[in-house]
């Protein structure tokens, strides 16, 4: 059970660095606040959060089917991660890791196209594309 979220920073700068554990803690804190002890206990089994692409600001949250509803209901209320003001957008909810990676790949591709349109030279485009995709796949494997 994977949920994908997109933290959008207030400042208009491309990259955002958040350590995964901090992100995990921020989510857990919010769930504790909004769903209480029961919510925190219900999601604990199998709960994991990984922030893994600084450029496109994508994170994966894993939760078991059922309690994932608690997390999706909490996401819009997460305003602060690692003392940085953020807002989270759920991009995709999938039942398997595979499905989610497929989505991410597509999503990255779209992002590349967006960035590419702002760029002038062909070389730069290739460089960006390679950087993004490569980054993605190595992270995926780990």
């Amino acid at each position, binding site marked *: 059970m994977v949920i994908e979220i997109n933290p959008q920073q207030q400042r208009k700068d491309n990259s955002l660095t958040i350590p995964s554990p901090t992100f995990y803690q921020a989510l857990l804190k919010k769930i504790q606040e909004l769903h209480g002890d*029961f*919510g925190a206990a*219900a999601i604990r089994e199998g709960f994991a959060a990984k922030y893994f692409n600084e450029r496109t600001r994508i994170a994966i949250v894993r939760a*078991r*089917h*059922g*309690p994932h*509803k*608690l997390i999706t209901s909490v996401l819009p209320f997460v305003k602060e991660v690692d003392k940085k003001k953020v807002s989270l957008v759920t991009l995709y909810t999938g039942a398997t890791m595979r499905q989610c990676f497929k989505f991410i790949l597509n999503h990255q591709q779209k992002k590349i196209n967006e960035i590419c349109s702002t760029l002038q030279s062909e070389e730069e485009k290739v460089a960006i594309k390679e950087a993004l995709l490569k980054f993605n796949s190595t992270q995926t494997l780990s």
Partner: protein
Amino acid sequence: MLSPEIWNFKAPDSLVKVEKGNIVNNNCFNTIQKLHHNHLVSVVLPDTLRVPQNICETLKNDCEYYKISNVGLDELVNINFINAFVRKGIFISLSINERIDCDDCMCITPNGFLLLSLTKETYESLGLEGTPSHYYNTKQRYVVSINLLSNHFKPGKKNYDRTKDRLLTLKKMTLLINWEPPHLDICPSSVAKYFDDLKFDVQVCLPDFQMRTNYTIKVPNFTMDNIHEFVEWLGMFSLESDLGGGGESYLSTYETPQPYQEYGQVKFLQWRGFFSSQQINKLLEVLISHLKDEEKPWISLYVQGFSDVVVGWDLQEHHYYTNGDNGYVIVLNSEDYMVYQHMCSKKSYK
């Protein structure tokens, strides 16, 4: 891998059946006949200054019942006893201080059945034939049914002797007994005398009666389309709850349903004890005649059964999950009646 439910928890089920009709064809009496062991009766009379004596006394006079402590159940299949009481008049009985969900319970229905609801262990040691309870699919509880009025159920027959012999092994119980004699010239207390002669501890119990008047009360109009709100209001009034309209909306958002009318005095009457359906029937007759004579807007009657009785509505098995409610509300006006039946769910628990 399945996760447990985390958001929508379903409250334990209960069934509600609403029935409407015209007062002339007397269908509302049918409901009363379906619930035999009644514990609590309450009546609400709106716009009433003085409650007629006959209403108060219907459930007070001749409504004594008896509590007999430590009776062995074999006494109840004694042929003399069956012939003298169960066969004649209307005899009902049930065990008290035993919980239907944990202990062994007994009751006798007006049609002469002795019903036992037993735990698995008691059932196995008893050795009489029964059926597994509908509510537990793991067969933890059994119901044993003995027809006391059967022609073959008499001394000398194998079945009778065996039943009596086996019932002797059961634990002694405390029973409530209510007997209505077949003729007026037989004293209802003869059943008490019977047990007293057998040296049992017999105690006469009188129904507990309470009457209350509330002044300047907003009373909702009774119509057929706001039944749930109306029944809720009856509860609010009967329990002397906050009927709304005050300034303190922090505590409760309840408001008396619209449209309502304000009456100077509203009476509340309540009896508690052990009543047969015949006695409730009499009360309803008195209430209907009172309604016709005095032109009241409406009259309501609430009856609650026992929580720990073996059978509830229509002699169907009863159970106790987190409550053991069986009851009904009858609201009458000069033309129509409404019956609001409340019963425990028939679903078996998995």
